[in-house]
């Protein structure tokens, strides 16, 4: 099997724009091509991810009708991870040498919604007021804080850190710092999570160009190796978003399995990671995912975050670009934004957000309905 290198990344800023989702995607592709120093005609295949756009492959209308195979994927919050995995595995298996993964989305305002039957749920679940994704995050965060001695203020510290990182990320949606008091004082959406502790759906696009690792130096002096992307769904025993019930005997969340599998495939451990991107749908999720991915023990986050470990300057930098809280979540693009930031960090191109000490290993994780997680490991 071939190893896989990322030779170019591109990202259209996240936020609210007059352009169509397709135009955002075309812009991200152009930026990735330029970054890789290749032309669209060099791309042998593509994978596109989106929720709102049924056919991301139609972006070829804007960037070039070259006849390449182009596959569209949707996998909720793991959509971009699926695009990355499919693109990388196609190269690993030797089918093509160079391909692109692109994610693009443009969501209406407000929390995501779809008919419950689309997720195999009974209508009463929604009619009863339980079909609310943020509600699950409130339940999970509340229980985690209670069981592991973490304060509500630590939630505010996480959100404040991500807004702060957004201020120094020109591509971010939210670029205004918020104090812990402002975050704690905003309306309570789902206890203990307040309005400013949540990300919101928005618009954006991101792309990554990958190739066989043995030819990467033709294109760049700084290839970043995609060592693993693993996707896992919930097992019987896990209590996940949109659950009518859970068994008494608990199993761990799918993120735990995805992270373990990715680290095993990469031959790397959590202790080797220098820069981290986690799914911060809400501030509690970032805290919980730190432990689920193996970066700390349950409960250690209270002290680590108080000490600034997850800051850009800390020992365990998390969401250096502001994460979902500062960037919002265009579902199809979100996981590719994480990879874009990691590639910039590992190349030493992250500007004001650069993690010191020449980071060599990056990790990205996504999680969403109905209990699907993905983990990705990158190295220089």
């Amino acid at each position: 099997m071939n190893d896989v290198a990322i030779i170019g990344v591109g990202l259209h800023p996240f936020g609210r724009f007059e352009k169509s989702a397709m135009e955002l995607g075309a812009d991200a592709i152009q930026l990735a091509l330029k970054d890789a120093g290749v032309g669209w005609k060099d791309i042998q295949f593509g994978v596109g991810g989106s929720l709102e756009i049924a056919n991301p492959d139609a972006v070829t209308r804007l960037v070039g009708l070259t006849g390449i195979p182009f596959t569209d994927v949707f996998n909720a919050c793991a959509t971009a991870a699926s695009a990355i995995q499919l693109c990388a595995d196609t190269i690993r298996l030797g089918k093509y040498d160079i391909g692109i993964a692109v994610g693009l989305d443009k969501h209406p305002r407000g929390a995501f919604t779809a008919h419950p039957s689309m997720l195999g749920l009974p209508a009463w679940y929604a009619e009863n007021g339980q079909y609310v994704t943020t509600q699950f995050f409130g339940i999970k965060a509340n229980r985690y804080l209670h069981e592991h001695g973490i304060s509500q203020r630590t939630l505010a510290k996480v959100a404040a850190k991500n807004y702060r990182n957004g201020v120094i990320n020109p591509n971010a949606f939210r670029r205004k710092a918020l104090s812990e008091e402002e975050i704690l004082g905003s309306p309570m959406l789902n206890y203990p999570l307040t309005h400013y502790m949540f990300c919101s759906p928005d618009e954006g696009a991101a792309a990554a160009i990958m190739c066989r690792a043995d030819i990467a130096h033709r294109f760049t002096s700084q290839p970043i190796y995609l060592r693993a992307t693993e996707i896992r769904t919930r097992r019987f025993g896990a209590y996940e978003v949109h659950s009518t019930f859970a068994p008494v005997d608990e199993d761990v969340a799918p993120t735990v399995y995805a992270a373990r599998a990715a680290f095993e495939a990469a031959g790397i451990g959590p202790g080797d990671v220098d820069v981290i991107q986690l799914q911060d749908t809400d501030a509690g999720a970032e805290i919980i995912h730190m432990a689920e991915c193996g970066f700390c023990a349950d409960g250690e986050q209270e002290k680590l975050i108080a000490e600034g470990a997850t800051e850009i300057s800390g020992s365990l930098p998390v969401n250096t670009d502001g994460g979902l809280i500062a960037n919002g979540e265009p579902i199809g693009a979100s996981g590719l934004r994480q990879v874009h930031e990691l590639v910039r960090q590992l190349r030493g191109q992250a500007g004001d957000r650069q993690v010191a000490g020449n980071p060599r290993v990056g990790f990205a994780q996504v999680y969403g309905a109905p209990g699907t997680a993905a983990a990705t490991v990158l190295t220089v």
Partner: protein
Amino acid sequence: MQKALAPEISTWPDEQPQLIGSRCGDCSATTFPTQALCPRCSGDKMSDELLPRRGTLIAWTTQGFVPKLPYAGGETAETFKPFGVGLVQLDDVIRVEGRLTESDPEKLKFGMDVELTMVPFYTDADGDEVITFAFAPA
């Protein structure tokens, strides 16, 4: 008159209503609501099982804003009152997610005893009172 939001999921109007789940004849996994195949062993030996009425609160939150449609409550942002939501362990059988009659974070406690109840939810277009299941402190 009164009618249930989802008549198929409980024994209401029994005086002591119970939720109706499924139990696997092969591995004894229990689900709520009923389903035809076992989510644990994939077997097809599922039969209806009346779930215990009492349990303990494993985890909870509050719903602080009006859920999007097809939410049936019909409140506006002005008339909406936050409600509690919890994961309740019914004996040692199953954990069920449902509304809580209590919504004050000061009064909701992890591990507190709760009991199934049927509560008025909204009035439908025919003027009938629609009731739904919830868990009340016991």
